[in-house]
């Protein structure tokens, strides 16, 4: 058993306790810790951006030889974003946004289509090789049924009559089971975070683990 002598471990431990005090009720200690955290995270990002981006990628290439003058155009387009702070010039922001949206959509849409839809559709085909064992056959059929009925559930162009109603009923069961699984996993994640903090408090701070 050896309690920590590091000032940083103490600060971290006290801040952790201040945040956890919220579980009892909202109080000034919680508020203080919360505000320190928010200020820190913003300050941290600004410093990282300054040293990792603005200095080596904008300032140095532009002002030191060999000067990369071509950088001026993207910089100018980017600068237009600051128009948002002025009532008179806030229309300027449309241009960088247009460039950004167009470029991003161009890169993203085909890849998204391939990754999230075509490859997934291909994987859901019931091919003979999926029926090698009883377990894999059951899995393949289950996934297939889940996919089809869920798609039907989210089909808005027809009334839920004839077969569609039944299929979407099955679909919602699949969706709810998925929600249950997600809920369970979230519980696991939250408890893990608590475990992590407790390990820190018991091991690094108090030294009793």
């Amino acid at each position, binding site marked *: 058993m050896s309690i920590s002598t590091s000032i940083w471990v103490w600060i971290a431990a006290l801040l952790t306790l201040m945040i956890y005090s919220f579980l009892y009720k909202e109080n000034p200690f919680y508020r203080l810790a919360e505000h320190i955290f928010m200020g820190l995270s913003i300050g941290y990002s600004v410093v990282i951006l300054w040293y990792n981006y603005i200095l080596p990628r904008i300032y140095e290439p532009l002002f030191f030889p060999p000067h990369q003058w071509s950088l001026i155009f993207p910089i100018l387009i980017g600068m237009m974003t600051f128009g948002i702070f002025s009532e008179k010039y806030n229309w300027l922001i449309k241009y960088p946004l247009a460039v950004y949206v167009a470029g991003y959509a161009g890169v993203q849409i085909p890849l998204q289509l391939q990754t999230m839809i075509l490859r997934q559709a291909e994987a859901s085909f019931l091919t003979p090789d999926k029926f090698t064992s009883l377990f894999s056959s059951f899995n393949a059929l289950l996934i297939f049924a889940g996919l089809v009925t869920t798609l039907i559930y989210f*089909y808005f162009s*027809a009334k839920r009559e004839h077969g569609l109603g039944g299929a979407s009923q099955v679909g919602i069961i699949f969706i709810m089971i998925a929600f249950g699984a997600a809920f369970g996993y*979230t519980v696991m994640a939250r408890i893990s975070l608590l475990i992590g903090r407790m390990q820190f408090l018991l091991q690094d701070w108090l030294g009793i683990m």
Partner: protein
Amino acid sequence: MIFLLILSFTISAKDTPDDAGGSITINVYNIPEGTEQIELYRLTKGDTLFEEVGLIPIFKGELDDATVTDGVLYLYKATALTPDTVYVAEIKEFASSSPEWFNKSRTSVLLFIALFWVVILVYIQLAKKNPEGLFIRKLPPLEAMDEAVGRATEMGKPVLYVPGIEYITDAGTLASITILAKVGRKVAEYETRIINPHFDPIVMTTAQETLKNAFSEAGRPDAFNKDDVFYLTSEQFGFAAGVDGIMLRERPGAIFLQGYFYAESLILAETGYSIGAIQIAGTNATTQLPFFVAACDYVLLGEEMFAASAYISKEPRLLGSIKGSDLAKSVLLVLIGVGVIFGTFAAIKNVAGNPVYMEIFDRILEFLARTAE
């Protein structure tokens, strides 16, 4: 002589197709038997000496030389080393690399996207001409909305509408504003009070305008109280605590949680449940849906939110994209159905010794795999 020519060790070099430049593909043919190693050399036009590029893998007989500069001309020479002889092959004309504007291997993706795009445009045009002509199924939570406002009125309690904690740029927030207009009209009709706290000032201004219009449309512009649409805070849990406080103090009869939510979703829905309000939630944040499903009476699940807002507003662009994505879903279902049918046939027929179906099936899979590459 002809026989010898055909079988002689040869080399070809051409610009690598469908790339961004900077690469030449070298192929060697008729690799002599017993070859242990194939070395590749290149001569830059204007130089006098060949420099070594690397080894060509014998099993492939192909190498991409990615160390070239676009537009510069190169001459290639390959040597195949067998234990007793060195065979040399050289290209006759200079080769150079260049980038291509169009990647032909992705034509199918372009077609797919173009088709989808055209379908949406057509639907938007149709919706513009006749918004009532495009059918969208009415969703049960939408029907429940009127009922919830009615019940809050009967109980003499206000309605609380929380638009999530995203900015106006988020699709979920936009859908939420449309749904707010619908709820606002009902509230005005029933002469109830609507409380509408906000996380973001721009969303707040939009909501104020929307509600003002909704009250005017219902014929009661005077009943609209601007102070009931207010900015709370832009801090996530501060906002959650603030809304919880409002729920406990004002005891609304109906609560609408519509928009994009993060980890505060359960905190809000739980408090709403504890005060016994009817809760109708809707979010495009799929990670938060389980919590709403657990704690609310009705939930618009993901895309249902957009369908709901299209249903309410009859806005052509919204209607068009919902219809377009419905068609895409149908195409996908058909595609999967075809896959299944051929798969089954293939399995049966293949055993019986008729590989035709298998062949067709393989072709389809191949096409898909190529599209997905």
